[in-house]
């Protein structure tokens, strides 16, 4: 399956590349969008091959990253529009989805998207309970209840405000 990116049919002048996700789907992306990823840019400089296989990025995540790259490669869009696209892009996304996205942007080296996603994740996390953070990041608590209580007592300064949510 070949999916064109959101900008519609590519003009003959523009070069494009095909990017394949780990689950086998292929995406047709303009070269101008692909090179916004430092990793893809390097690959394209090193080899003539127009098919790039990404073994650790799934279909759904790759589609999101490509939508982002295509929007940011669009010279017709103002910086303001791109900024509001960025806000829209991360809003309402599940924490898990953001985790896959941040990993993908790290692999593909898309620094500005990595920042946007990391910022969104921090925004979600800041009012959550420690138990929520453990769950979402798959962290094993290796403190005994007594030891954890002691740590919390030592760091009492961090615990003197309230209003936390857990969901």
């Amino acid at each position, binding site marked *: 399956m070949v999916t064109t990116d959101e900008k519609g049919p590519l003009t003959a002048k523009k070069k494009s590349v095909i990017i394949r996700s780990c689950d086998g789907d292929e995406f047709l992306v303009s070269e101008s969008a692909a090179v916004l990823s430092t990793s893809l840019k390097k690959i394209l400089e090193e080899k003539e091959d127009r098919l790039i296989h990404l073994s650790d990025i799934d279909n759904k995540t790759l589609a999101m990253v490509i939508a982002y790259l295509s929007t940011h490669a669009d010279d017709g869009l103002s910086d303001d529009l791109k900024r509001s696209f960025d806000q829209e892009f991360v809003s309402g996304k599940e924490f898990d989805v953001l*985790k896959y996205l*941040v*990993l993908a942007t*790290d692999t593909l080296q898309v620094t500005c998207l*990595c*920042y946007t996603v*990391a*910022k969104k*994740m*921090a*925004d979600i*996390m*800041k*009012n959550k309970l*420690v138990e929520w*953070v*453990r769950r979402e*990041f*798959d*962290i*094993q*608590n*290796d*403190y005994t209840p007594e030891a*954890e209580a002691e*740590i*919390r007592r030592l*760091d009492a*300064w*961090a*615990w003197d*405000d309230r209003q936390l949510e857990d969901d």
Partner: protein
Amino acid sequence: MVTSDLPEEILIDIFSRLPTKSVGKCRCLAKTWRTLLSTPSFIKSHLARTRKTRQENLILITHSQSIHSIANIKDDDTVSRELELPDLWAEVVGSCDGLVLFINVDDEVILVNPITLQQAKIPTSPLAFERSESFTMHAIGYDSLRDDYKVVVLSYLETYNGSRPSYLDTFVDVYSVKTGVWKRIGISPYPFADLDFAYGVFVNEAIHWLSMNSKLDCPYVLIAAFDLANEVFFEIPAPRGIDVGKFLFKKLVVLGGCLCVVDTSSYSGVDVWIMKEYNVSESWTKFSMYFDQCMFKPLCFIGDDEVVSVVEGPCLVVLNFKDGTSRDLVVNGVPALFTDGCIFVESLVSPAFCGN
């Protein structure tokens, strides 16, 4: 590896964007996390992000000599919190990267992180003059070359007693927070005036104070600077039109990250000069307004035109430089009564020797 999910550098990226107290809470996630969120490199990343947000908090000394902080100045419901730092506090010298330098009523100099409530007493320099006969000016700053916070003390000795000598030169001593060691830099070519609530001002990697060059026929006011990394003195031009007369009514402060000279010598009001671009003499911008006060210390901007200041009273007022109006700042529902204050940023930086 602290989790099976994400690489460590991404985790640091995400967690360094959390508010300081959220990081503190996350220090109990697991043992490895406590270590990760306490490393100097994490604390630096976190500080770099906080700096970017430019969120300024106020630290204030109350009439009863306790410490309060204000996180958000709002028009109607500004709230201050008393910090659990039992002592009798007299003066707040200044702040750098979330470390605030205080002097208590016993003249002890104490470095405090008002967020983590860690504090460290700065030992007296072995070369310090007898306190009762000397005049000192303190400052806190950061030496980027050695990655070290430094307390700077300028001092001179005036005995008023013929049998013992005075040392009227300005001695400069620097204390390294990292090593816990004092070092005498030498004698500053620029003296300072001993004034209430006048401290060295840290901007652009250097400590600054208002000084005067009186060796020439025609004395002039200048801003003396001491570069913490290179340990050299230099001079920054004072605003044009600042005269040498009534020197004691002039004060150097930091406002909005810029050097700022406050002049209360005129009966017609206060003059405030702001050096918008560092060390660019043409960038001095003057604001004047009618305000009959000798004690006047601007702390921070609210928006573009309003400045929160400590004035005699003692209280906090909001001055509007644009329309010349002033109003009391209402804190906790009443007009705020504070004797001194300064701004600080939230950070995890430790005030203690060796960063522990």
